[in-house]
């Protein structure tokens, strides 16, 4: 097998991976290898032709490909080698990466550091166990988006979107603009799964009905989807006998994302059952020294902007690791307290400033975000599961955290 060496290998050339590569490059790392299975870099951004990208990072309203181009245009530096159409097939326990493509065959990469930036995959119809037949015309929203925006095919004409994730709402609008009739977006929870701005801009502005606390309970159709049965759900989430049928030829599923960590399991890394990503510290270093992660492989982010900021942290930390300059002052676990599903990074090491990202379990108004010893005490008007809470800790706060036995953060009513 062909063998190559790299200071840092980055798996995945989406926003997080590219940001990591560029940051590590800026830090003076000489031999950076970034690989991606697609024929061009940019990851999922290439199919996200809608706007709304870059508001945080560049203070501009960009489309996905425009946002991606900010990074792609800088990848041509001599210290960054990009291998496209290349898949990582194996991460060995001794820290080697096996990659494969049709020009080099299998290649064994021996890196000094690894950055995992594989992004995430969509949950499927199977994972929400909707009974019925298995005809054609059933897509995850992202697959439909690819067909529509990259491949140039109309997935269908009469559409029902199952789940109100962001991609589902964006595709409801996109397909409407392309002449399809979107009959309904259903959501089993009492509130939408995606960003408020998408509810407004993608559904309300196009008169697409959003059925909260409703679920598809049956899929019909032999060859192609012919319709669905939708039921109102009770408080416990079980279907009631208030049902209605919609005839449709297409179903799009937007029922959540799962960080893509099949490679991480091979090392093996310890994964969080809550986020689906590896446990990470504030350098985005995983349970294995020298292995870092960022973006949606680490945990599902709301925006590509965040994925890039994490990529920069991971890129800088990996560079420091390669230069033997990665230090930690302490190791404090971050405990997700009241009303929080998760708070990441999972560990603090003393690095400042550091941004904590948190997701609440349910929407709440007039809350305060507080931590052990009131080191954090912030008021916020609205919190919801679809929008991550960001709290940035400064040097002074970290000095106090260092002295604690446990650092717990939570959200409570005011």
């Amino acid at each position, binding site marked *: 097998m062909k063998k190559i060496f790299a200071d840092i290998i980055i798996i995945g050339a989406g926003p997080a991976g590219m940001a990591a590569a560029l940051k590590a490059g800026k830090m003076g790392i000489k031999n950076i290898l970034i690989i991606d299975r697609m024929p061009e870099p940019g990851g999922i951004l290439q199919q996200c032709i809608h706007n709304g990208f870059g508001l945080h990072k560049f203070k501009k309203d960009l489309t996905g490909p425009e946002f991606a181009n900010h990074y792609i245009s800088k990848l041509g530096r001599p210290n960054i080698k990009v291998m496209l159409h290349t898949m990582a097939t194996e991460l060995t326990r001794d820290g080697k990466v096996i990659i494969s493509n049709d020009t080099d065959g299998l290649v064994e990469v021996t890196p000094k550091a690894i950055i995992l930036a594989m992004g995430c995959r969509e949950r499927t119809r199977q994972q929400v166990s909707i009974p019925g037949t298995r005809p054609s015309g059933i897509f995850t929203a992202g697959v439909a988006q690819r067909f529509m925006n990259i491949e140039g095919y109309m997935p*269908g004409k009469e559409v029902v979107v199952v789940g109100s994730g962001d991609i589902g709402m964006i595709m409801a609008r996109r397909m409407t603009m392309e002449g399809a009739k979107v009959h309904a977006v259903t959501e089993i929870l009492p509130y939408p799964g995606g960003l408020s701005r998408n509810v407004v801009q993608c559904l309300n502005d196009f008169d697409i009905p959003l059925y909260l606390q409703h679920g598809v309970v049956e899929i019909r159709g032999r060859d192609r989807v012919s319709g669905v049965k939708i039921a109102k759900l009770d408080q416990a989430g079980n279907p009631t006998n208030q049902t209605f049928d919609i005839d449709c*030829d297409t179903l799009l599923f937007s029922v959540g994302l799962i960080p893509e960590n099949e490679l991480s399991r091979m090392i093996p890394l310890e994964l969080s059952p809550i986020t689906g990503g590896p446990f990470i510290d504030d350098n985005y270093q995983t349970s294995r020294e020298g292995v870092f992660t960022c973006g949606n492989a680490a945990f599902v982010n709301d925006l590509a902007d965040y994925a890039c900021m994490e990529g920069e942290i991971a890129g800088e930390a990996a560079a420091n690791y390669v230069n033997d300059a990665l230090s930690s002052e302490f190791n404090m676990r971050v405990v997700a307290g009241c009303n929080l599903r998760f708070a990441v990074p999972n560990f603090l090491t003393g690095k400042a400033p550091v941004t904590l990202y948190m997701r609440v379990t349910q929407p709440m108004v007039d809350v305060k975000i507080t931590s052990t010893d009131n080191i954090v005490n912030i008021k916020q008007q609205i919190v919801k599961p679809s929008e991550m809470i960001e709290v940035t800790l400064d040097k002074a706060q970290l000095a106090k955290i260092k002295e604690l036995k446990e650092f717990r953060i939570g959200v409570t009513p005011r």
Partner: protein
Amino acid sequence: MPETYDIAIIGGGIIGNAIARELSRYELKTILIEKEIEVSFGTSKANSGIIHSALHDDMRTLKGQLCLRGNALWEKLSQELRIPFERVGEILVARSGSDIPVLKKLLDNAKTNKIPAEIIEGSRLHDMEPNLSPEISTGLLAPTAGVIPPYEMTYALYENAMQNGIEYLLDSKVTKIVRDQKSFAITAGRSEIKAGYVINAAGVYADEVAKLVGANNFRIKPRKGEEYILDKRLDNINNHIIFPTPTPTSKGILIIKTIEGSTMIGPTAEETSDREDVSTSDAGLKKVLDFVRTMIHDIPKKDIIASFAGIRPVSDTNDFIIEESSKAQHFINVAGIQSPGLTAAPAIALMVVNILKLSGLNLKQKDDFKKYDKPHRRFSLASNKEKELLIKLNPTFGNIVCRCETVTEAEVVTAIRNGAKTTDGIKLRTRAGMGRCQSGFCLHHVMKLLSRELNVPEETLTKRGGDSLVVREKRLPAGRHG
């Protein structure tokens, strides 16, 4: 003039293809007719891949005899067709004290029939199956039970039969059969065919096909079964095929160790009047989960990555019906092939050849029967050294199309050259799209390859023929971001 054949086989499932391949050893002109666009698209598509030990069967039935005979033929057949086959063994567990005498009786039967079996108790049982419910302390082990990849098997039989001159007429439903002095005139789709013998292996439609010549001295009572597959990652749930102790009417719901290493749970057994009803249901899933959790408590619902249902062609005699019809000479029914039909398939094929012989067909062995000579079938199962060699021979082995199952471009292209026309055809042959992302990543790659190799536009491709178009229409001009 319609083309004339010695034999027409109706039905391209595992049984029709096993018979076709067996007949391809002889100097005969044979055609197999299938109503679906590809073979293995009916009941065989939903097979669970178990090679049964025959422990459950009554040797007074044809089912029992052919199951036992079939089981012994699988080493040779799987080697000839380069299909992985593993005798993982089956364990029938006692879920209550009253099950134990039943297991003892089955053990006695096994001894009589020379089926290797033994009672396993206590810690030995739990060493073999560490996740088994602690309440279960007795099981009956039959080590000769095994597992195979059932679709790959059907396609290998099909390819080997084709290599040896069997013709295939697909996408052609048989609607009319007229018997005259010397032969049958068959209308199948838009084709007319003449054949000296007809072999009816039409699965759930066997009674309807038999009826066309009045040879329907039986009825098919379709019985639906739902199956659920867990993520491959959880490959340590069970090591054997775990059965409950059978009741007089049912083998129960199983926890299957598939040849892929993943766990499959099911099937349900529900009579249905609709021969095409392969829908799954909430009730079915609940039934399966509730049942299997009595054997292994911790079977996670969230790790179910796929579900499917199939229709078993159960005859009203509840046994296999394999005979020349007394109503129509030279019309051979191979009907009611429910479980253990896959196990019995090689024995059924031999039995059919024998029936033809007894019926007066002149069978002369070819001296140039071609062995199945397909290269390595599964890239993902190869060692890194073998993988390198494959990529050297054909660089497109380096291009991985399906990430979850590690399926390469070379394998997809081979499948297309061997007759795959649809995305389901690719999936059943190569496993591309069977993994945890359920074709999210590979679908558009597979469509591009189908379009390129078959030279047809992507918008005409279907999931499995008929109206199952994958996409509705071409929209933007070729190129990006229209």
